[in-house]
């Protein structure tokens, strides 16, 4: 008798037999974010000493359209992003992921910071590092690194020291890391805050690429133009609260609150 291994009835594919790590590569892009979303924030608040920095945050991240968190400085945008990503624990309220265990895996979520942080290694080594800590199979590394470098236009710089790159190049590398890892959700904290228009355009193109590959985008900005270019829906914040949220087109055309209208008109909210 042939010993051809265990047999499975059709439709009974052994889920446990496929290594969990390979999921991201095999499933269709559209399914990736769906496995952990929606992310629901229930009455989330954050207090530091006497200052109430966030309050009454009730939000649901689902669907696929990029969410842009918009608002003046000090509105609590970055804080909200850090709470969503798990870098900070809210002092009140709850975060509910559809699959909390999956959501906490290093290859499920990623964050790109205002000022990118690079290891003192080559550009390619920084991408490999991200793949390794995210638990991506080693045999996939070379192909993923090459693809990410190519997409970010960093192939000629692959062997350069990452910490010696310009700000724009470093930010592209930060995004290339995400492109390689393909997280289910990506949080971006004003990734173009320190960049000139040319670098900003390249970064936005990369964000679009990551979005199209099936990663859910949640991004903080106070650049209204950028929000218009990238947003699927808008979360408008002011003084630690969500003032308005919903579809981007209607937000920009008919803001329903005075604060949002004033902000869009370029008035200085404080």
């Amino acid at each position, binding site marked *: 008798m042939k010993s051809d291994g265990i047999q499975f009835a059709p439709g009974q594919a052994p889920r446990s037999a496929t290594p969990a790590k390979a999921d991201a590569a095999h499933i269709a892009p559209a399914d990736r974010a769906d496995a952990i979303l929606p992310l629901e924030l229930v009455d989330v608040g954050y207090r530091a000493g006497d200052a109430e920095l966030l309050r009454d945050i009730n939000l649901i991240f689902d669907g696929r359209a990029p969410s842009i968190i918009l608002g003046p400085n000090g509105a609590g945008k970055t804080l909200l992003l850090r709470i969503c990503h798990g870098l900070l624990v809210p002092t009140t309220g709850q975060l509910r992921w559809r699959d909390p265990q999956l959501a906490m895996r290093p290859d499920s*979520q990623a964050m790109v910071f205002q000022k990118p942080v690079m290891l003192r290694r080559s550009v390619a080594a920084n991408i490999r590092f991200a793949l390794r800590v995210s638990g991506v199979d080693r045999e996939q590394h070379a192909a993923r690194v090459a693809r990410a470098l190519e997409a970010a236009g960093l192939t000629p710089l692959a062997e350069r020291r990452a910490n010696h790159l310009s700000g724009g190049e470093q930010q592209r590398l930060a995004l290339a890391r995400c492109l390689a890892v393909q997280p289910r959700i990506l949080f971006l904290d004003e990734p173009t805050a320190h960049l000139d228009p040319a670098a900003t355009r390249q970064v936005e193109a990369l964000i679009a690429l990551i979005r199209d590959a099936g990663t859910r985008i949640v991004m903080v900005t106070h650049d209204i133009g950028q929000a218009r270019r990238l947003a699927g829906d808008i979360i408008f914040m002011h003084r630690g609260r969500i003032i308005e949220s919903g579809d981007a087109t209607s937000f920009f055309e008919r803001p329903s609150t005075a604060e949002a209208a004033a902000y869009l008109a370029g008035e200085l909210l404080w």
Partner: protein
Amino acid sequence: MSQFGDAAGTAVGLVLEADPTLVEIVLLSLRVSLSAVVIAACIGMPLGAWLTVSRFPGRRLVISVLNSLMGMPPVVLGLMVYLLLSRAGPLGEYGLLFTPTAMIVAQTLLVLPIIAALTRQTLSDLHREYDEQFRSFRIGPFAGTLILIREGRYSLATALLAGFGRASAEVGAVMIVGGNINHVTRVMTTTIAMETSKGDFSLALGLGIVLLAIVLVVNLLVSMLQWREKLA
């Protein structure tokens, strides 16, 4: 003047022909100081790393004390180790006073704060830079610290060399706890001090040349490492 000229000539001769007395002294010096640095590194680097990531009441005080101990006068440390190891002292029963072991103990204690404090400083700077990114990558504190050590390897090597420079050049601690006994605890610095006071300059100068060469090499290595780090 010719007396110094002759002494210098003899000294160079001693070094070039590897005079057995001189070699014995140099080897003991290296053995004591290198052992001290290795032991101090084994304790000081984990201590510095732990002080980087841990949070406990009084942590700032511990760090301040550690930083102050970098400037510990070797004679004072020598005196303390002497009291500890002398027959009447708490560790007197081991009979370690006036042995190379006593000298290693003294120099370890001298170098430990330097290595621990410089390690903590290096890793703290890196920790500030990488902490959030590492937490975003879901890298735990232990694994994160190991990565920081790799990232800071040039600065950490510099800390070790600084410790070695300090140990090999000090005279006070080894003189007190070693006693400068011929063929037993006589090292470069104590021999230089003794021979000079005797007015016998050739061996003193010969050892001086070797010691100076060691210190120069150590400092050259430090600048090379700093140069490499700038490129890294």
